[in-house]
């Protein structure tokens, strides 16, 4: 199962052009949802106005080379390793989910666009990436969902309390999970039994919810957060620091450091 392209098998019943149209529709839905989100919440407008205001208190001008270097460092370290989450379980779970999702989506796009006809031969690396990505997403997402969600971890809410903020993570977990189950059942050659078809429908529906619900879910944070991280690091470098004081040059008499406790004292 792990080395076979599920979309290639599916193309025996559904034409590959239909799959490719579905994929493009999902991309369009994400773009539309994000644009409507930006227009409605005016968050990007606020973000740039705030950045412009902060620039006035800059103590030095950054050169283009310096800016490029800061942005590159931010992309590689801050965004690539989600450093804002600090060291710990939240970061590991987020990294699992983030990279799992990226691998899952890239492999889906490649397999649907390039290898979805029944005659094409898929290099075994793509199905492997697709399945691995889905497993990583389910693991990271479930870890977050059951144990690490702030409303569960710090506010003592039960894990089964579902709120609007869960739309994104739940849709993400279910998409990967239904995809995996569908791929497994399809690989069993069930001779027109209902099982794999049911999970195929669930996989399609969860994709529609995930990509069609961008406006209502936290999906767009994937685009906003990197922007915010870049702005934060540029502000640190140009001395404006969003009005924050500079890092302390700690004298020794200030004593030992303190180990922060996890926010779990409810």
């Amino acid at each position, binding site marked *: 199962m792990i080395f076979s392209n599920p979309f290639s098998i599916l193309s025996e019943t559904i034409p590959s052009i239909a799959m490719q149209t579905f994929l493009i529709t999902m991309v369009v839905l994400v773009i539309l949802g994000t644009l409507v989100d930006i227009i409605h919440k005016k*968050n990007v407008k606020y*973000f740039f106005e705030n950045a412009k205001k902060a620039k006035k208190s800059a103590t030095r001008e950054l050169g283009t080379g310096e800016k490029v270097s800061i942005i590159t460092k931010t992309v590689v370290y801050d965004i690539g390793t989600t450093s*804002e*989450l*600090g060291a710990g379980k*939240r970061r590991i779970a987020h990294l699992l989910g983030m990279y799992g999702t990226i691998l899952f989506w890239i492999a889906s796009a490649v397999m649907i666009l390039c290898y979805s006809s029944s005659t094409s031969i898929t290099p075994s690396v793509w199905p492997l990436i697709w399945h691995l990505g889905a497993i990583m997403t389910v693991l990271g997402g479930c870890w977050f969902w059951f144990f690490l*969600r*702030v*409303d569960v*971890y*710090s*506010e003592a809410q039960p894990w089964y309390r579902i*709120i*609007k*903020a869960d739309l994104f993570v739940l849709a993400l977990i279910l998409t990967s999970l239904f995809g995996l189950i569908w791929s497994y059942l399809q690989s069993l050659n069930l001779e027109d039994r209902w099982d794999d078809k049911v999970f195929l429908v669930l996989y399609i529906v969860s994709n529609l919810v995930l990509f069609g619900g961008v406006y209502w879910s*936290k999906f767009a*944070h994937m685009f*906003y*957060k990197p*922007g*915010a991280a870049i*702005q*934060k690091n540029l502000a640190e470098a140009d001395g404006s620091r*969003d*009005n*924050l*004081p*500079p*890092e*302390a*040059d*700690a004298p020794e*008499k*200030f*004593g*030992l*450091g*303190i*180990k*922060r406790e996890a*926010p*779990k*004292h*409810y």
Partner: protein
Amino acid sequence: MSTFVYMTRCDGCGHCVDICPSDIMHIDETIRRAKNIEPNFCWECYSCVKACPNHAIDVRGYADFAPMGHSVRVRREEEKGTISWKIKFRNGKEKNFVSPITTKPWGKFIPKLAETDKPNQGEIKSQILYNEPKGLNTKKELPTVSKNAFKKGVYY
């Protein structure tokens, strides 16, 4: 004045929810970021502002008495044991302060009350607090105020 959260900086870690003495910092149900659910009840104690690892919380003055863009921001670096403040006045003047969070190793001088003897009724009714006068580095007897000297109209 009350606290508010910069949504682009908040990552929903829950430190402010944990530390708020008024229990008014909560997690938003739509975007899972922190928010002050009752600004009128905020004491401006700055606990959440200092606890936030992403500097996502700020305090705003009401526009009628703080209309000209002052700012009071803080950076707490626990690994260094320091807390730094940057005060920006309305006229643009800036002041920076750095202070120690604690001058003693954390935890070493916190009394383990569960392991100490229970106080008797005499000690409970006494005006002398726990660990006094030893905790004040003195062996002298501490002064007390006679109940008769208390303000009239207040009864104990």
